[in-house]
């Protein structure tokens, strides 16, 4: 697939890969923990707060009329402070927790109304889960842990072990099949957890604070790994986290939760640039590095670029090699001339024209010290990556849509660590 911009990998935008049918559709979901849900709901309708309801009935209103849709292939992040209901919501989706009211459609079927047999079948085929504390079975080898889902489905031992080995290799743990979970580091354990969820090839992955128990460096690796896997496997992921950086890095869309309600749903850019209310704003402000960071902090090496003296065939070759839809063009002194697109270059090759004639000069550029807030709005309005240039218009780096957020999350950790 060709994407615009000289970018080797941009996550395929959702519209490209999917039909418009949501794969998960949560409708008016409410969950009350405790003896008397009716009473709690009645008090809630009368406008009492979560605390007042708890004081009066001893019941907790953990989810309050939550609705949202998730599209196939989307990574949907549930974010919020501890106790805001994220885990409860996630566990309602595979019905580890039975909702009090509402429905959850998975591929159009309401899991809330399913009988035990149907529920088991749906959990086996469609829903994988990854746990905060890894939850590996301590008495089983890594391989048998990874094969667990298939074992439950009654797949013969050789077949399931073969599949499990394959998946273990995919998560970089080939050769560890015979180890016991207790012998592995945290990061490795969670790779096993990931592998276990992937082995039965579910469409949906439910991840509850999956990386929160890992130390920061390992955590970042796992995030990158997940992005990488997601690019290859294109699962629908619901990812719970209390960490904004992680949410920004991983999420196609983020739902911010507070006291059992969703207060805002949006893309990372929308959440950052347009916090809907004071709660979100505060959440964002806590970690808002967009004002602190500038282009030079987040840009990548300017590769590949085409010299304007090179012919269109060279440019074409570069684009094909890197599987990109356009490439930036510089002159002998690395000054930015503009950009050529794949289409134009193909035509130029056929018509025997030079590269100079097809350069688009209308490309977004920013200076090295442009703050991130401004870059986000530039990049949002552009089909191409943003070029970073110095005072003399020399190309210094490139900024892509996806990596800006990754960089944001990364720098956040560094700054927090050094602060």
């Amino acid at each position, binding site marked *: 697939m060709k994407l615009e911009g000289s970018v080797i990998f941009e996550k395929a935008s959702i519209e490209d890969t999917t039909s418009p049918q949501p794969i998960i559709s949560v409708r008016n979901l409410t969950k009350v923990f405790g003896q008397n849900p009716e009473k709690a709901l009645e008090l809630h309708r009368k406008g009492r707060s979560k605390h007042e309801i708890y004081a009066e009935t001893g019941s907790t209103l953990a989810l309050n009329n939550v609705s949202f849709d998730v599209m196939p292939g989307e990574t949907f992040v549930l974010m919020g402070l501890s106790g805001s209901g994220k885990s409860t919501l996630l566990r309602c989706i595979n019905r580890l927790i039975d909702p009090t009211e509402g429905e959850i459609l998975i591929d159009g079927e309401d899991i809330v109304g399913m009988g035990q047999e149907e529920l088991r079948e749906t959990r086996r085929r469609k829903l994988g889960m990854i*746990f905060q504390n890894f939850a590996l079975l301590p008495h089983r080898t890594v391989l048998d842990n990874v094969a667990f889902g298939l074992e439950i489905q009654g797949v013969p031992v050789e077949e399931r072990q073969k599949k499990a080995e394959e998946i273990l290799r995919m998560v970089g743990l080939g050769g560890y099949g015979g180890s016991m979970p207790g012998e592995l580091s945290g990061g490795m354990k969670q790779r096993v957890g990931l592998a276990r969820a992937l082995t039965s090839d579910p469409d949906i992955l439910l991840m509850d604070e999956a990386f929160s128990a890992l130390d920061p460096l390992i955590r970042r690796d796992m995030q990158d790994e997940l992005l990488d896997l997601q690019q290859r496997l294109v699962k629908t992921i619901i990812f719970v986290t209390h960490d904004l950086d992680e949410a920004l890095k991983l999420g196609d869309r983020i739902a911010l939760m507070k006291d059992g309600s969703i207060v805002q749903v949006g893309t990372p850019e929308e959440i950052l640039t347009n916090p809907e209310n004071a709660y979100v704003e505060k959440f964002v402000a806590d970690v808002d590095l967009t004002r602190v960071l500038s282009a030079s902090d987040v840009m990548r090496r300017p590769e590949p670029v085409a010299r304007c003296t090179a012919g269109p065939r060279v440019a074409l070759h570069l684009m094909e090699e890197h599987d990109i839809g356009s490439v930036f063009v510089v002159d002998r002194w690395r000054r930015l001339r503009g950009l050529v697109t794949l289409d134009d270059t193909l035509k130029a090759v056929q018509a025997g024209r030079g590269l100079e004639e097809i350069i688009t000069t209308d490309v977004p550029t920013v200076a090295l010290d442009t703050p991130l807030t401004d870059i986000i709005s530039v990049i949002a309005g552009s089909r191409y990556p943003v070029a970073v240039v110095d005072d003399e218009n020399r190309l210094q780096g490139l900024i892509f849509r996806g990596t800006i957020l990754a960089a944001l999350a990364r720098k956040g950790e560094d700054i927090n660590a050094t602060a």
Partner: protein
Amino acid sequence: MQLPKLPLGDAVEALVDWIEQYFGWLLDAVSAGLGFLIGGLQGLLLAIPAPVLILLAAVLVWFVTRRDIKLAGLTALGLLLIWDLQLWNLAMLTLALVLVSTIVALAISIPLGIAAAGSDAINAALRPVLDFMQTMPSFVYLIPAVIFFGLGNVPGTIATVVFAMPPALRLTNLGIRQVPTELVEVADAFGSTPRQKLFKVQLPVALPTIMAGVNQCIMLALSMTVIASMIGAGGLGYQVLVGIQRVDIGMGFEAGLAIVIIAIILDRITQNLVPQYENR
């Protein structure tokens, strides 16, 4: 002033008569079954020449303790001592009594423990019964055993079973309830049936705790051997009892030592039978 005495004793006697009349066949069947098991196991143990059995026991200990050669050696030495003291036949009867009592006790208590872990109602119903059983002095169990089964090895075994059951039941229940929530969620999230959840997750994860219950069950059964001999159970316990009655210190000591040796060996074996895994 003296209150009129309630005819409690008469009532109990009537109840016992009634049970014997209508469930006599059941009592007979239990008696015959247990007698057969005890006799059979004892016969089997005695059919193996003592030196061979001693070697087998040492190898077993060596194997389950993951090659603890010292413990294996001590096992062999201890059993040799029992043989040398000419207590071998009695020891094999004691072993047969203890093993049969333990197996019967576990066959009842582990399923009940699983049921109690799965249902708060069953758990609530069983708890007072267990408390009652555990606060009773062990002598008390002798009375119904004698009433329904007379004297001998069988009533001794019955009393031992009742006495040895509670910890295994409690620890099975506890072990399953203590399985981390996330692990139970793993079973559910991957679509296990209740049966798969029990056998693939709950029981294996609870196994170390359940084995602690098995261990306690065996130790209680052994501790009951002397007491059970008061209603005619044979073996080393009876030897101790006779030693006490005749004030024969030497005889009582030798038999008592043999019991301790068997206890230590059984303890080491059961403690090491399942490996302990790190639970995260």
